[in-house]
């Protein structure tokens, strides 16, 4: 008996301190489905994804392994399991067996066996803990396979199988139930607004019937960086916008999307869309949040099933546009700055130039990280990974890349436009006792407004 335990948890005598080697990766399960029910549920969800575009990607992989070289998890650990396309193995196997052109033969001769619950469980770590869907692999793939998008699709099956890391499942479930993943319920939010309005002496309109601009927030901002709300209000008031926050639709984060629940993703997006439609907004401003941009700017209309009747802008885009139009004036802020590109806004969202235009208007010396913009390294907290506690060690390892990048610029100030990145930076700063603090682009602008 004791030998079994020793085999599962062998002594690690090679490290700096003596310890037990990391146990076999644990996985979480939701619900009490049987293994068979779990795989069948996963298959049904996978099947839904196998359209022509996904099929082309899954057919095209040449097993060249280049995607590993773009992935922060592989680069930092050298563990081949973190090869991005390997994370899709069960998804790919399901495709070949169920929907590909030769599926009939794969099934007839069992050339590709049925995906098992064990496999799905083993892949939980690969599809969640070690993938932020940052899309660097999409950029390197010589066949142009959008691996990050496929990981998102594979998560749909994982959710249906009830095989999501527990914390991520829990925040998603809370978001669906309470409207916010982090306890920023309408009541809590309302209290916060009232308090912030008093404290900072800014007017924050709530629940206007009619408004040109609807402002949404991230729970992370509401709960952890409430200054962002004040900063937003300052900017919009300075611009004399007819704007509002609505308590029936304010949450921009979408943990339904990150965890892989299509229905919850839709529910969360529809709240925001309905609120904007209700107040006749011409513009929906998304907060400093990366995945919110992907969920609303690019997926919103598809969830809605038709083009959205309003424009969607990330706050950095809104700032850049306002400054370019001469409506918003900012003071020169003398400092050297480096800017962290949030993956979903920059590499996968296309709003890469806007924050740089804003920084240029602020007159700061921008010291770009190498690489930056499209090729930028992820902070390691995206894709819901920052919520998963068991992934902390791995996350800190990949964060080392980011710290080195920032240090190498020698810039005095670190700026970004994503509160999820920001909280990942804050956590990394605390863990490593690092001397760099992450700042918000929006707050930097708000602090330097010309009244």
């Amino acid at each position, binding site marked *: 008996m004791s030998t079994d335990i020793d085999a599962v948890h062998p002594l690690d005598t090679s490290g700096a301190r003596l310890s037990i080697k990391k146990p076999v990766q644990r996985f979480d399960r939701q619900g009490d489905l049987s293994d068979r029910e779990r795989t069948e549920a996963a298959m049904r969800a996978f099947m839904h994804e196998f359209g022509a575009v996904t099929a082309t990607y899954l*057919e*095209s992989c040449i097993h060249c392994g280049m995607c590993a070289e773009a992935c922060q998890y592989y680069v930092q650990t050298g563990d081949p399991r973190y*090869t991005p396309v390997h994370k899709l193995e069960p998804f790919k196997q399901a495709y070949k067996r169920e929907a590909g052109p030769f599926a009939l033969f794969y099934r007839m001769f069992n050339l590709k066996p049925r995906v098992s619950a064990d496999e799905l469980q083993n892949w939980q770590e690969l599809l969640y803990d070690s993938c932020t869907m940052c899309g660097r692999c999409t950029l390197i793939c*010589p066949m142009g396979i959008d691996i990050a998008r496929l990981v998102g699709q594979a998560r749909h099956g994982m959710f249906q199988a009830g095989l999501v890391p527990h914390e991520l499942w829990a925040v998603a479930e809370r978001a669906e139930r309470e409207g916010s993943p982090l306890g920023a319920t309408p009541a809590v939010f309302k209290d916060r607004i009232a308090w912030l309005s008093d404290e900072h002496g800014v007017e924050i309109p709530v629940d206007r019937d009619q408004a040109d601009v609807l402002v949404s927030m991230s729970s992370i901002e509401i709960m952890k960086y409430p200054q962002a709300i004040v900063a937003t209000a300052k900017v919009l008031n300075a611009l004399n916008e007819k704007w509002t926050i609505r308590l029936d639709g304010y949450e921009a984060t979408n943990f339904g999307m990150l965890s892989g629940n299509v229905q919850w993703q839709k529910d969360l997006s529809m709240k925001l869309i309905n609120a904007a439609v209700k107040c006749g907004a011409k513009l929906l401003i998304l907060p400093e949040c990366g995945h919110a941009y992907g969920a609303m700017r690019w997926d919103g209309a598809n969830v809605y099933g038709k083009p959205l009747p309003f424009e969607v802008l990330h706050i950095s885009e809104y700032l850049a546009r306002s400054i370019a139009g001469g409506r918003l004036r900012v003071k020169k802020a003398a400092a050297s700055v480096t800017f962290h590109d949030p993956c979903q806004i920059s590499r996968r969202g296309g709003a890469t130039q806007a924050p740089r235009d804003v920084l240029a208007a602020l007159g700061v010396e921008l010291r770009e990280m190498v690489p930056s913009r499209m090729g930028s390294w992820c902070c390691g907290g995206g894709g819901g990974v920052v919520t998963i506690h068991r992934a902390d060690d791995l996350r800190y390892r990949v964060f080392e890349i980011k710290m080195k990048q920032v240090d190498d610029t020698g810039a005095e100030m670190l700026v970004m436009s994503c509160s999820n990145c920001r909280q990942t930076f804050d956590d990394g700063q605390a863990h490593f006792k690092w001397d760099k603090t992450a700042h918000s682009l929006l707050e930097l602008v708000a602090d330097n407004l010309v009244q």
Partner: protein
Amino acid sequence: MNLLDFARGAAMKWSLAVFVFGIFWRLTGILLLHRTHDYSVPRAHGALLGALRTIIARSWPRREFRARTAYGLAVSYAFHIGLAIVVFGFVPHILLIRSLTGLGWNGLPDGVIYFCAVVTLIALIMALIRRVTHPVLKLLSNFDDYFSWVVTAAPVVTGLLTVAHYGARYETLLALHILSFEVLLVWFPFGKLMHGLLLPVARGQTGAFYARRGVNP
């Protein structure tokens, strides 16, 4: 009927038939699966241009990836270019292409072809060594990878033996060379070699998808 007659006759006919049959099967089987309409407002127009740009630009890695991919890339480029030169530059091959398609062009001197074939073979061997030693490639590789390697390397080896008249009589070597290529033709649509045709589709759809977002992937 000897081996060469078989290779030039029935085997060529049926291998070509399987080749086109398989290609159409696989392409229609993939491309006719369902598609969804994207209702999001594009940041930029020119999805087609984006597709074309990615189809071409993705042939070369972005600056930030170059150092880490240089070796694998050099090896793959070596055998891809080598194969292209040998397949499209050697006069007997051009004649085959002309007899099938009516298109012809001038060939390269044999010395150049032999050199390229040897380089190609060396690069293929290096690629194989890398595949069986590199932890990532070892993990990813399956039967398709190794079999596709064999059917790609076999025509190069038999071709070199044929021009060198080494190992058997010329007509036997020529027959084996043609047959080995026919095996490649038969395998092409069903394995990873199909990436030759899927490449523009996969790159193109990514290029078009991100061009809408104003991203140049």
